[in-house]
């Protein structure tokens, strides 16, 4: 194998290929990146049986061939190479990387033992990359990080005729948003769903944020449950999480007439300030009245804090107790100057009704997007 490639193109491709490699793996060869020089160009790929990445770039191929080499090492090297064409060749089991004044010799790994990358099924539909990327960042924040319940460590993707909705929850909050979806297959009678690990989906969102349009393929058959995202000659596949996502849509209220509208940045600043005196895991108390919203940090013996900011209230005065980080996650995700906080009621005296956070483009105008973040308040302790 022998080829020459542009330094920046090579570095970017290697960094993409290794991005989703696991930090630790039981099988050393899975930490490798497969470098495949063919007449069509240079293909770099990785696969750990869960997630695969693959990208093809242009290179001057003098001699075709395939090698497997330590992914992180190659990525570290590629990102530090001087600005000059990169020459890669093999000598027996050694891989020689030359770039300007720098020379590296790397040992290749046994390429014969490397697993075959999953085959990608027919395209299911197309997504607008930027909107999808934003939606992932807004929704994935609510996914659980606790492996005790694997189904909620994923983001649930639900395909309907012309929209794709993303849903995530950790039991304490639910985030949901829809993005446009252009279906390319024949109209299927069954709603297609895919439960994708949140961590993987966040990387996918970042990677494809500026790619224009993303092609998505969902294989949801019994023997293989896989999703593939492709754009710009880059492809990421991920196994789907098995199991049934909890039916969280029913938790959202049909109408919520009792709500407050507050400046998002002001509220976030105030939450961060007042929660400085809180003990870990403690909640902040919010009192919404016609005069605004008052935040109080109570329950700590050493220090207390309070702050009142402007706000517009529609309906009854309301007091809720919310975990500051959970609220900040929602406020940070609405991406609008103002935020609407709606209150709901429950019949259970031991459980306050959930709070709904939505965007608001001005004091009076609800946001145009359909992002919703539902948060369960704590029980009021006094």
């Amino acid at each position, binding site marked *: 194998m022998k080829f020459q490639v542009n330094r920046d193109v090579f570095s970017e491709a290697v960094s993409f290929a290794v991005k989703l490699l696991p930090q630790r793996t039981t099988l050393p060869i899975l930490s490798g990146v497969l470098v495949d020089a063919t007449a069509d160009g240079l293909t770099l790929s990785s696969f750990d049986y869960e997630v695969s990445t693959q990208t093809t770039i242009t290179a001057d191929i003098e001699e075709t061939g395939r090698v497997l080499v330590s992914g992180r090492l190659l990525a570290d090297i590629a990102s530090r190479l001087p600005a000059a064409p990169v020459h890669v060749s093999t000598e027996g089991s050694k891989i020689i990387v030359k770039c300007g004044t720098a020379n590296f010799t790397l040992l290749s790994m046994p390429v014969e033992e490397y697993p075959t990358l999953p085959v990608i099924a027919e395209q299911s539909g197309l997504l607008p990359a930027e909107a999808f990327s934003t939606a992932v960042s807004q929704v994935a924040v609510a996914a*659980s990080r*606790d492996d*005790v*319940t694997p189904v909620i460590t994923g983001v649930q993707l639900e395909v309907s005729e012309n929209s794709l909705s993303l849903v995530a*929850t950790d*039991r*304490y*909050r*639910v985030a949901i948003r829809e993005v446009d979806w252009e279906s390319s297959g024949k109209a299927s009678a069954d709603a297609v769903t895919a439960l994708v690990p949140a961590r993987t989906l966040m990387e996918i969102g970042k990677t494809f944020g500026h790619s224009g349009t993303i092609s998505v393929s969902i294989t949801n058959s019994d023997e293989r449950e896989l999703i593939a995202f492709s754009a710009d000659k880059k492809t990421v596949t991920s196994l789907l999480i098995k199991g049934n996502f*909890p039916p*969280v849509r029913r*938790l959202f209220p049909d109408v919520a007439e009792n709500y407050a509208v507050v400046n998002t940045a002001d509220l976030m600043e105030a939450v961060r300030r007042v929660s400085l005196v809180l003990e870990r*895991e403690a*909640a902040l108390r919010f009192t919404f009245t016609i005069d605004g919203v008052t935040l109080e940090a109570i329950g700590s013996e050493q220090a207390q804090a309070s702050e009142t900011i402007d706000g517009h209230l529609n309906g009854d005065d309301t007091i809720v107790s919310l*975990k500051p980080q959970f609220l900040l996650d929602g406020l940070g995700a609405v991406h609008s100057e103002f935020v609407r906080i709606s209150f709901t009621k429950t019949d259970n005296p*031991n*459980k*306050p009704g*959930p709070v709904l956070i939505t965007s608001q483009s001005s004091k009076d105008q609800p946001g145009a997007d359909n992002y919703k973040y*539902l948060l*369960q308040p*704590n*029980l009021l302790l006094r």
Partner: protein
Amino acid sequence: MGRQDGSTRQVSADSVDSSTAPILHVDLDAFFASVELLERPDLADLPVVVAHNSLRSVVTAANYPARKFGVRSAIPLSRALQLCPSAIVLEPHFEKYRHYSRLVMSIFDDMTPLVERLGIDEAFLDVAGARGVIGPPGDVARLIRERVRAETGLACSVGAAATKFVAKLASGRAKPDGLLVIPRSETLSFLHPLPVGALWGVGAVTEKSLLGRGLHTIGDIAQTPLDVLRRVVGDAGGRKLHALANGIDPRPVTRDTAEKSIGHEVTFEIDVSDAGTLRRELLRQASQVGRRLRASGLEGRTVVLKLRYADFTTITRSRTLAEPTDVGRRIADEVRDLYEAVGAHPPVRLIGVRMEQLTDAGTNAAGLWDDDEDWRGAERVIDDVGERFGTDLVRPASLMKPAAELGPSKRRPHL
């Protein structure tokens, strides 16, 4: 440690200066046996063992007259009766022990907020702060002993020292019914003659390797270079032993979280291989654990299954839940999954269900939904029925069998 029969008893005079010994270790003497004897004072001077009167049971507790015969807790009852054929066997009553434990612990709480409970019948207290209110540690210890006797009729022994480790050794030496104060300046002269086995963390194996190197007393260890100790018992162990032998124990008295686990276990009269019987027993225990959690206002997050096979090998399997629960049905589901995952197994001698990682119910942030909601409501109703008409009146259908068919003849609640 020691012979546990009071033959090496050592106590302090009231005049000893206790001001440098603010850590108290309070231990109730022969607690279970003493509680039983409160109702049978006529037996107090006779050898008494507390145990289920069954072929395979073990001794739960023994009073001091029985200990003189070599009877100790945890030996088989049959062996105890060989050692002391005249011993009187009394049935244990764990509810009573919990009741008296609460009475005694509340006396401790009156002395200082720094109480660290160790099981049901002992605790560490840091009484440095009680000096202005009650007096020096010796006075606090005497007051505790008087109040425990006056309010419960039970005897306790107290060790006072500068560290937890020495206080615990001192209470052991003071038994029965004594107080031993080890002022800081006398710590080493108290420690050094004691056998190495008395050191905290020295088990049978470590003891053997220490004795094998001619290290017989704590004093021997204190004089052994740290490097040598590290070679004998490992790096961390060596450092720990060296520190303890020199009277250094940095562990503070920490306010505790009451109970660490709630569970039940049963030793079968005859080993059981039938999975159906075992599953029913798990369901019964899980329901009981749920009921006890609710009665104590607690929730647990980790479910533990314990199996002991006929050959005495013991396995435990545990699973941590996404959110804590006090619902027996949920505990039963989880523990049954744990049991199924064990697969084929030898006949079972003992089976048990335990909940760990306990927190006060209601302190956990509520989720948007609750998988256990329906069962939680149902079980609360069952609790109410049980309170009015007697427990076990309402129970899962699979447990509606004649008691004899269920097998377990003796139940030994895990405390």
